[in-house]
């Protein structure tokens, strides 16, 4: 069973407001991913980190989304100015570094509703 912790589980924001969610990866997992799962259950990769360094991120993430994984603190994903289209389940996943299989372990997600 996954031990990735995400808070809050539910987040409601108005358009234009900041929305911030946090993720504690499994202990010993240096690689962290953020995905957005929309109402059609489709996944979209947003960003990933190894330790504190960004490995990849999509254009959307570069503009309105910011994310970090500071040492000894939870990882976070923040939407600077929420839009209705940002309403989705935001999933954090983590994995070990250099493992033979690329299995990622997911947290329960933060469900964001933008009114």
């Amino acid at each position, binding site marked *: *069973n*996954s031990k*990735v912790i995400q808070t809050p589980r539910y987040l409601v924001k108005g358009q234009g407001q900041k929305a911030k969610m946090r993720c504690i990866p499994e202990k010993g997992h240096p*690689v962290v*991913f953020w*995905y957005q799962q929309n109402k*059609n*259950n*489709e*996944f979209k*990769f947003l960003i*990933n980190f*190894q330790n504190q360094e960004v*490995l*990849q991120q999509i254009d959307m993430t570069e503009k309105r989304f910011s994310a970090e994984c500071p040492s000894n603190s939870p990882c976070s994903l923040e939407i600077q100015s929420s839009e209705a289209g940002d309403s989705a389940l935001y*999933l954090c*996943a983590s*994995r*070990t*570094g*250099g*493992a*033979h*299989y*690329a*299995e*990622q*372990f*997911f*947290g*329960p*997600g933060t469900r964001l509703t933008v009114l």
Partner: protein
Amino acid sequence: GDSVTQTEGLVTVTEGLPVKLNCTYQTTYLTIAFFWYVQYLNEAPQVLLRSSTDNKRTEHQGFHATLHKSSSSFHLQKSSAQLSDSALYYCALSDHYGNEKITFGAGTKLTIKP
């Protein structure tokens, strides 16, 4: 870019009958790992099966899948469906070393009816 195709959005099967969920892919990765993730209602996705070896059957919890690189497929099967198998199933691929993102298919909602 890389893509995973799941042709069925919804599959309904009677309990006790076999299940097959289709998955094909396109990728530019040289080394790749494949997964079936299962997501139960209001829960996190979790790995059901994984494989990176061509033509080798992998099994877990009564489900099985075989990666066929010749046909770019990784279909999921089970010989006898159970009510508890009702869930969303995602086929996915990733770079073998895992620092790359996972590319998910659109998902198949499997409903098992009594």
